[in-house]
């Protein structure tokens, strides 16, 4: 009844995607890309036991079991900044708007704050900028040489209901324009209908289309009705080769919630236990305060450990979060409460 029994042993098992050679430093090798697994219906069936009430109790108490104060809090907020996918996903986005966002990503903190925190030459800035396909080229140009990734939402975001060929073409187009991370959405109906094999096949095709670009799979958890569905959808996505699983588009009526996040993290842990493969996690939608970011960091730290606090395994999809973090960092330095208009907008 466990992942272990249904899955090949770590390392030597079947994989469905060809893998590039890993190219990390010895000290902290980046998470290897996920080769995926053959579809395993038995594992999904065994993973359906998720007790919402127990998960809610866990997340309700977590923020009370762990606390980060003062210097530690400042450090943790910098961490939140470093794992951020600074995002704009509005119908009225323009290249100008995206250029402004990229400028903020390059210089996320006011110089006096950088100096006050003693950051010196260390560069701490968002991991990626996340945009719709038409702005990928703009972002890639703006961020060239910075190390900041360009992520494109794709596959008929946010609903995922375009023809498969159209969706695959969209992925390829974004990769061609310079996106090295692709945030795809799943058609939620496949989950609600229990068509897990079809879901797996689509995601595997997305992964194929991504090529070298990393694949983040948005589950649209607000539409999935149960934590059992969330868990199984996350597992199916990982089997199909997702590098990240992501909660929400930000367009559902319910965004990233901690119980949903916990269910996904436990699926990630089960996948790691079974395969040795680390999969990333991206909560997105509604994470707009420093306090909320700390709660998510604590959840990650407790459920998956320190390793999952790096940008190769954790991202926050956020837009206004950065300003709040900046305000809190200023408060840490001055003891005064800051105002949003004192920080450069994105």
């Amino acid at each position, binding site marked *: *009844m*466990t992942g*272990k029994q249904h899955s090949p042993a770590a390392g030597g098992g079947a994989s469905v995607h060809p893998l590039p050679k890993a190219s990390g430093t010895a000290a902290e090798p980046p998470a290897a890309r996920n080769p995926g697994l053959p579809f395993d219906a038995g594992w999904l069936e065994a993973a*359906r*036991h*998720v*007790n*919402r*009430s*127990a*998960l*809610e*109790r*866990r997340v309700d*108490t977590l923020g*009370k*079991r*762990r*606390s*980060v*104060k*003062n*210097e*530690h809090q*400042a*450090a*943790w907020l*910098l*961490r939140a900044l470093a794992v951020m996918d600074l995002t704009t996903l509005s119908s009225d986005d323009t290249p100008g708007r995206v250029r402004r966002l990229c400028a903020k990503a390059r210089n996320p903190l006011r110089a006096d704050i950088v100096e006050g*925190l*003693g*950051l*010196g030459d*260390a560069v*701490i800035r968002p991991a990626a900028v996340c945009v719709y396909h038409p702005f990928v080229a703009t972002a890639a140009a703006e961020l060239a040489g910075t190390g900041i990734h360009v992520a494109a939402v794709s596959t008929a975001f946010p609903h995922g209901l375009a023809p498969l060929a159209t969706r695959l073409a969209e992925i390829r187009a974004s990769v061609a324009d310079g996106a090295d991370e692709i945030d795809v959405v799943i058609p939620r109906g496949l989950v609600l209908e229990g068509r897990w094999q079809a879901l797996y096949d689509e995601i595997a095709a997305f992964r194929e289309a991504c090529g070298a670009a990393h694949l983040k799979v948005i589950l649209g958890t607000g539409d999935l*009705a*149960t*934590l059992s569905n969330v868990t199984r959808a996350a597992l199916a996505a990982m089997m199909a080769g997702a590098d990240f699983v992501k909660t929400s588009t930000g367009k559902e009526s319910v965004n990233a919630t901690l119980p949903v996040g916990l269910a996904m993290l*436990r699926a990630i*842990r089960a996948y790691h*236990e079974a395969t040795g493969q680390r999969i990333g996690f991206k909560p997105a939608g509604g994470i707009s305060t420093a306090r909320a970011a700390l709660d998510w*960091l604590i959840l990650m*730290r*407790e459920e998956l450990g*320190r390793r999952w*606090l790096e940008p190769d395994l954790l991202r926050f999809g956020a837009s206004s979060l950065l300003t709040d973090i900046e305000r809190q960092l200023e408060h840490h330095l001055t003891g005064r409460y800051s105002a949003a208009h004192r920080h450069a907008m994105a």
Partner: protein
Amino acid sequence: MTILERYAAMDYGPAPESRAEADAWLAGRDLARTLFVDGAWRAGRAGRRFAVEEPASGRPLAEIAEADADDVADAVAAARKALPRWRAASGYRRARILYAIGRAMQRHARLFAVLESIDNGKPIRESRDIDVPLAVRHFIHHAGWAQEMARAFPGHGPVGVVGQIIPWNFPLLMLAWKIAPALAAGCTVVLKPAEYTPLTAILFAEICARAGVPKGVVNIVQGGAETGSAMVAHPGVDKIAFTGSSEVGRMIRRATAGSGKALSLELGGKSPFVVFDDADLDSAVEGLVDGIWFNQGQVCCAGSRLLVQENVAETLLARVRARMGRLRLGDPLDKNTDIGPLVAAVQLARVRDLVAEGARQGAECWQPAVDLPAAGHYHLPTLVTGVAPANVLMQEEVFGPVLAATTFRTTEEAVALANNTRYGLAASVWSETVGRALHVAPQLKAGVVWINGTNLFDAACGFGGYRESGFGREGGREGLREYLAPAGPARRRAYAPIAMPEATGEPDAAIDRTPKLFVGGRQVRPDATYVRAVADARGRLAGEAGIGNRKDIRNAVAAARKSAWPSATAYNRSQVLYYFAENLAVRADEFAARIARLTGAGARAARAEVDAAVERLFACGSLADKVEGRVHQPPMRAVTLALNEPVGVVGLVAPDAAPLLGLVAMLGPALAMGNAVVAVPSWRYPLVATDLYQVIETSDLPAGAVNIVTGPADALARVLARHDDVDGLWCVADAKTCRAVELESAGNLKRVWTGNGRAVDWHAEDADAAAFAARAIEVKNVWVPYGD
């Protein structure tokens, strides 16, 4: 350390709760005068004090005034003096005062929490988020009961002056569990906190004084075992309520035997934590954290025995070990501490000794490589595997952060292992299949069952144990009942056994009859095959009754234990009892004649007794499917099912007077609630009972539901009291026998009700079918959190 280094490390760092307010509070008290008696602060008469230390550092914290027997006597006198006005106060007045206490505690919540953590060593997260809010909830909930009592419990009043003794593991919460229902009921109290943890009770008493609690209604005496003994022994105390170890509970049971004091005991446990293969395993792991690593495992209902289905055992235990590695031991006042120190050095030594002994007996003890503070009484969380059921760590309550794990194959085996213990306080069941969970819960011998949860508490939901985990409940209606007594029953005359004259002459039956014992559905001869000649009222030989002995009782208890009766449906029990009544009614003339001849009662009186017995059985038939449980809705997304379950095997010792009605009035309600019965009928008039088994035989009662052993009632009562497979015992007999029964019951802490050496009026409210039905059940609270 620079911010960048912290950014790399991503450690939590210290997050200390300030202790400044608590230290200022301590500094501002005259701790030599910390007995709260009759509304005033005073020193002990002997001027004695005892030292309190801080478990996290081992440093001395305070020197507290100690109460001796004289101080206890003063406190009891104050409570007795305050009782008439307090019990006469309107429910609304008592409600306002309880409400004021609750609100005042809420206003001082942080001070309570910090004091508790300093004094006890429990993590501030627990005292702040669990202990104090639950204590507040208890007062506010019981404020409502104070006002509602007259309507909810007509004909009942407060039991009187209550002596309460509480443990050190939840000092404030246990105080609230004891004092709130007592005050709501109209009782006055003398409470003794544990000597390790006296502080929050002092703050509580200060709040009482400000909240308008009249002088003498709440008295707090501090001290250890000697102080507690003085309270238990004091004749001015009407009831003792105790929470603590089973060992001390037994001592109190013995000490109060024959005193007429009411008693409720909430004792130890070795609670099973059962994980099925269809459980949410990750949530079950978190459940264990909240089960056995809550309050350092110093919890009477801690899930200390992990029973996991074989096919998921390896996975679960691997996850448990991984989770244990993330537990943080440290300063109780640090908000990031999961596990604080044990309360005292002797407790730490005890836990270490038990773990060492368990290892010596073959257990594998695993501890995570986590940091252990240098000072203080810390014990690493410990997982014990490879344990046989006989291992000390599977048997004994450790009262520390030690989890013993074993596996099972089937549901049936899980239940058997779960129930393989002398205790019966709580149990956790983890399964995502509602049918399975609700199938298992009623089979567990435990007062509280949590499904997919653990250590959930609420003031509206009763808490308390089966078996040697004690008796009585705290919280809910059933908890309030423990502080009530029937209002003003007339003082009854002393029980007098009826003299047994020598029998003379020949029996006058046309054909010789041999009355036998009735065991396991069969008429059997007594083990020793001796008989006693039974005389009728005029001294003529009426028959020869078997002299049952301890072996007959043994056989009867074994037959009762095997009986299918407890699993009969309520409707089935109801029909059988009606049928029993019907069959007795058919033979009413015969029974009336038998009673008249044996007892010398007039024909009309004898007939009235038979009619009353028939009517009582009829009433029991009607109660069988109407004394139903309740559904509680605690303040979380859960329902709590308060199920009424039979006590189990119940012994009955019936009086000589009204030999038929006295027997039936106890037998009927016990059967109605699903108990299997071993009855010892009147030894003066045993032939009434031996006639009755013929009626029973024709009434569709399954074998073993009723067993009748005739014989010397006083001796057989003692045998029943000493039998550890008897769960309950009701005894109407002389004072000496009643006392002996209570004394001997301490062996397995069976539920005992006696007539206190007095006669019983079977038509009074406290002896009617409903009153005995209430004694014939245990309330089990099954918590079912839900959500999709």
